[in-house]
Every structure is written in C-alpha cells, then in structure tokens.
C-alpha cells in the first residue's frame, strides 16, 4: 500500500471502510459494532452527543487505538488495525479536539514537522547541511510557505504557537495537517469554541481544501448548522453505536437521531 495506490482510486469510490468496529478499554465499551464507509473526495461527518465515541473512531482510523474486533478496509486491503506511523505515511493526517501542537516551536517549525516524512536526508547530511540537506530544507520550506499563504498565517510565522490565541492555534494545527499533503484529512471538532466568524473562516478553509486539492475529509463537529451545510454524508453515533447514516437531509428527519439529541420520553 502506498500513497500512489490511494491516489489511483477514482473520485467517489470507496477509500476507507470500517467493518463492525468494536473498541473496549477494560470493561468500558467505547465503540460497538460500528460500520460505515468513506468515499474519496467527499466531506464525511461523524456526529453524536458527548461520549458517543466519535474521537475514539478517529483514533481507530489513524491507528492510535487498535480496535478490539472488526476490520478496517483501507484502499482495498483489510486490516485489523492501523499504526500511527503507517497511517501518516499512507496519507492520513489529522487534527485534535484538544489542540496537539508542539507548543515550544514556532508556527513555521510546526508546519515543517508536517513535512518530516517526506524529508529523506540522514542526520549526518543534516549535520553538514551544505548541499543536499540544505536544498531539501528549502524545497519543503516552499511547500510550507504555500500552506502559510493559504491559511493567512504569515504574520505569526515566527511566533511560538504556545502563545497564540485558541482560534489561531486551531488554524496552525490544520496547517500542519495540510503540510503533510494528505489524501484523507481527519478533523476532530475543528470549530469547537470558535465564534461565528471564526467558524465561517474555518468552514471556508475546509471546503477549499476539499474542492481544490480534492482531499477526502472526515470530520467531527457539534455545530449542526455547519455539519448540515458542508458535509456530503453523515454517520451518527450514540453510546458507541451507529444509530443512523446518510445524506444531511435524511439525518435531519431520522427519528433515532432526533431522539438521541433531544431525549426520548419514557411513555
């Protein structure tokens, strides 16, 4: 499996399929028998109330958790689980619900870490720096600068990200994921805690990435307005189980989903 295989999948065809995924920590069941598939080039949303297992699902997809049972079909191959490094190498990038940036490093360096897997020079060459290692640095710097331009991060290029406001940190994190030039982008609540304008900005970035780079996007979001607006298809989780899936319009009218969000009366 390589990045190439992933790129060869035609748009609209299945790129990732989760088959009967269950995940348990000791006795606690985070996910129970969840299945869905993601098609290439779409914006796919995972929604559900708090504690529904959405983040666990992303963690399974990029290999941070290994499912207790079930299979992940990734670009046509069935796997019992992914490895984080393998996932990153095969073109899966992600952002986190609680921002996971490298706080001591500048915005530029954070974005450059997104290029790590693509840099090939060994450490001895890097110690010498002259010649190939230095050239390599410049090539990747140029790619990163494009991301910086795209996300309007120019003014905070040299600022340590730990000191940036929350909204900007979210954007830098998106930038780091984009710097990896991913085929699949996993976004864990990219708009949590943002105001309306910031949400609009973020939605615009997400849609542009999807339209222009044709990146497949899997996203978790609580703001129903945003989800209904930008996603192509949706899956709904509740207590670790899938309770619905389909196009936004279908979800809107799904009885189980409405019950999960509003509660069911006992009678």
């Amino acid at each position, binding site marked *: 499996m390589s990045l190439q295989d992933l790129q060869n999948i035609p748009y609209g065809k299945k790129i990732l399929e989760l088959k009967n995924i269950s995940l348990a920590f000791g006795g606690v069941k985070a996910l129970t028998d969840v299945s869905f598939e993601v098609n290439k080039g779409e914006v796919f949303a995972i929604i559900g109330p708090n504690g529904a297992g959405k983040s666990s699902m992303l963690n399974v997809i990029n290999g*941070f958790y290994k499912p207790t049972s079930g299979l992940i079909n990734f670009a046509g191959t069935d796997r019992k689980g992914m490895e984080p*490094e393998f996932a990153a190498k095969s073109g899966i990038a992600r952002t986190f619900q609680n921002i*996971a940036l*490298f706080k001591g*490093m500048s915005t530029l360096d954070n974005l450059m870490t997104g290029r*790590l897997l693509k*840099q090939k020079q060994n450490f001895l060459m890097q110690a010498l*720096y002259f010649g190939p290692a230095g050239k390599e640095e410049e090539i990747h710097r140029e790619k990163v600068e494009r991301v910086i331009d795209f996300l309007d991060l120019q003014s905070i290029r040299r600022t340590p990200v730990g000191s940036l406001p929350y909204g900007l940190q979210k954007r830098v994190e998106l930038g780091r994921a984009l710097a990896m030039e991913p085929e699949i982008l996993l976004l864990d609540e990219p708009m949590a805690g943002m105001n309306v304008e910031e949400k609009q900005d973020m939605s615009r970035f997400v849609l542009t990435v999807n339209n222009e780079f044709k990146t497949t996007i899997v996203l978790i979001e609580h703001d129903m307005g945003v989800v209904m607006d930008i996603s192509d298809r949706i899956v709904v989780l509740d207590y670790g189980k899938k309770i619905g899936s389909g196009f936004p319009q279908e979800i809107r009218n799904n009885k189980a989903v409405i019950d999960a969000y509003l509660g069911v009366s006992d009678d």
Partner: protein
Amino acid sequence: MIYKETGQYKSSYKSDHAIFPLIQDKVLFSTLMLIAFLVVPFFINSYWEKAILVPFLIFSLAAIGLNILTGYCGQVSLGTGGFMAVGAFSTYKIMTSFPDLNIMIIVLISGVITAAVGIVFGLPSLRIKGFYLAVATLAAQFFLVWLFNKVPWFYNYSATGQITVSERLMFGIPVTGATAPPYATYLFCLVLVVLLGFAAKNMIRSKIGRSWMAIRDMDIAAEIIGVPPLKTKLSAFAVSSFFIGVSGALYFAIFLGAIEVTESFDIMTMSFPVLFMIIIGGLGSMLGSFLGAGFIVTLPIGLKFIMVDLIGLSAVTAKHFEISIWGLLMIVFLIVEPHGLARLWSITKEKLRRWPFPY
C-alpha cells in the same frame, strides 16, 4: 538602534533559514571567531588555559550534548558523568592499544563509542518518561562509574586505578601530556567545539531537530504525524552521547591528563553541574549551552575571589556557600526565567533594537 532589523530583506528561503539571519549577529560572531582563533592563542597562558578557556570549551560540548537530549528532545538525563567517563576511558584504551593513531581521530572514535553506549541506555526511553527516565539514567551513571572503577581491564591493571594520558602530537606539536603548550590544547579544543557546534546547530534546524522538538512538546501528536518515537529518541541519545563522550575524552586527555573515575565523573561533580549549565544557560538553546558553561566555569572562580580573597573565609566554607548558591541559582532561574541566560540575551537584543529610544 544597534540591533536594527528593518531593511534586512530576505529574498530566498536559504538566507532566511541561515544560522545568523541578522547582519549584526553575523558580525558579532565573526569577530568572536577572529579573536578566538587569531588573538587568544598569542596571549593565552597556563592559568587562562587551565582555569577558564579549556574547561569552558569542554563543558560547552557537554552542555550542547545534554541540551540536545534534555532541552531539545525533552528526555531528562542525570547520567552525564557516566557517559563522559565512557569517552575518557575509550580514549585511554584506544590510546594505549594503538599508539600511532592520531589523537583527533581517537577523540572522535571515543565519541562514537559513547554514542553506542548512549543508545543502549536510551532503549528504556520508549517505555518510560519524565522522572522515571531520569531515574533510569541514574542506572547508567552508577553502573558505568562502577564498571570503570572495578574492572581492571579498563585502566590497564594499574595499581592506583588511575588512567594517565601519554603525549600525542598534532602537526608536530604536543596537545596532550605535561609538555603541551597552552595554545595547542586550547586550539585543539576550539576547533572541535566550533566544528561540532555547527554540526549541532545544523541538525537542530533540520528535520532531525524538528523531530526531537516534536517528541519533546507532545510525543503522542508527534507519533501521529509520523515521527517514529523510538528512532527519534534513540537518535537524540546517540547524538547527545557523542557530544558528551567527546567532551569526556577531552576532559581526560587534554584537560586533566590523569583521572580517577569515582572522583571526576561522579554524579555530584559532573552530572549535576552540566545539568545546571543547561538550565541556567537555557534549555533548548545553543547559545544557552555556551553561556551556561561559561557561567558555571567562572562562577566558582568569582566566588572564591570574593569569599576567600576579599572577605577572608576559609576555602571549605566558601565551597559550602558555592553549593548553596548553585542550588539557589537553579531555583531562581526555574522560577524567574526558565529559558535561562539565552533568553536574557534576546531580551537585551530587543532593548538594543530600540536603543536609544525607550519605546
């Protein structure tokens, strides 16, 4: 307006990514280098050599080494003394086994051997973190010192357990042993420090350095963007140990000439002082490694001057004071300026940029 940045435009990523992007820094650094290479050797005497310059250079290397591991990669190590001992004893064994080998090569090989040992003791770092790892490095410290103290093969079965350096030449001039002139030992160390210093800086501003910092700042996120944790941590252990090993080799061969391992490479006399250097100098800063080494080397001299020569305290009492002051400084820096002297320098630069205007 000494540090004026305006008007210094960069037209390529290369110049923007240079080690000294500002012209002022470049000039300052070049002047320092000129003085260090062309002026100091003509005026250096044995007091400056033995008391200040050579120990400063040697400890700078050790501090860079520890800073790579602790400051850049976030793995706290208390085993610096043990790793320096590996460098020293490797040098001794190679020296006595291959009398014709050039001393520079011996020192570098010693560094490589220390790097290998560092990798072995770095293996647990995959499973354990934080102070657990710090305790694990204590195992390296105590085990290595014990090994060189108790296994006679390492000190060639000498009766005292000491190892002693023999004379080695570089371009016909002795650099080790009692007859080595001050300028020769100084220049030998200086060349190594400058070359290895640049190598370290280059690694830090490249992929490998960013991987280290990613692991330091958030290891889980680093793993998810594809930084292999074990490989990255081990590379930090290896590079760090290489620097520390070279510094241990110089400490033995160039600086002291004769060494008793339990005395010279003890946790109190070596591991902690080097840790102080990087904390006071600045964690995760190249400049800080040098400032810290300079500070720790000159502090005892200054304190001794004030307390013994001026106030008239006994040397023992002054020593006790010195210990408390080290501890105190460490706490004060951690509270007030966790980024150390290096940060103070950049604040000064900030001030100089606006000087003579207050704002």
